[in-house]
């Protein structure tokens, strides 16, 4: 990323992270973003301006609309979050491996 500080401060806000997660699913207009987050369009626009300034999203002009999508850097950031989510889940399952290993000697304990 060109400006890591700007990107990090843009990512520090949970709403902006949620907007990026939504954009990971495809392009969206301000109105489409405002609805699920129960925010006003000006509030969403402010967040989009920050994300755009950080190089995380790009916008194009389509009539009166300016739909936005993830910039390649934004995709990389979301990939990184998914990797972290995977890691948290993987940690649970690594613990489950240990629980299962401890259960093995008990297998068949209900048998006569």
């Amino acid at each position: 990323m060109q400006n890591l500080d700007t990107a990090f401060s843009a990512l520090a806000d949970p709403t902006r992270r949620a907007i990026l997660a939504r954009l990971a699913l495809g392009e969206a207009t301000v109105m489409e973003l405002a609805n699920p987050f129960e925010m006003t369009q000006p509030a969403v626009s402010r967040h989009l301006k920050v994300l755009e300034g950080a190089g995380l999203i790009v916008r194009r002009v389509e009539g009166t609309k300016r739909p936005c999508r993830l910039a390649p850097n934004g995709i990389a950031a979301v990939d990184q979050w998914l990797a972290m989510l995977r890691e948290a889940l993987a940690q649970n399952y690594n613990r489950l491996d240990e629980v299962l290993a401890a259960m093995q000697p008990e297998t068949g304990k209900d048998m006569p």
Partner: protein
Amino acid sequence: MSKMTLTIEGDTHVVITRRFAASPEAVYRAHTEPSLIQKWLLGPDGWTMPVCVNEARPGGTIRYEWTDGKGGGFHLTGEYLELVPFGRIVHLERMHLPDPTPDNRVETRFEQEAAGTLMTMRMTLPNAETRAAMLATGMEHGMEASYVRLESMI
């Protein structure tokens, strides 16, 4: 080596797979018996699950309460729809953050594979926005764990 996969499918699904070196019966029990669940379904280091209700029968209740031991925490509630012992579980669940998130329908299958088990968990969210929000929430918790690790390094 990564044994787990996490993928998104269509507009509303999240699919997780994981292989275990244990029988489907053992893996199924570890998902339905509270004393076993409390040992592993914990998230980031330092979190515990002091309350674990799991009534493994159709219509039975699920309630998991997590705490970080420092005053932070959240809980999940759910209901069982179908259970085929050692093979398949279908349940609804929602997180309370503290407002309840829309219902997530989760189908979990446990299949014998060689000497172990292939678990496939297929989540269905009501719409694309809910799925995005759920993944974002998961990312938050994942990020929190990563920040904690980062803090301990610097």
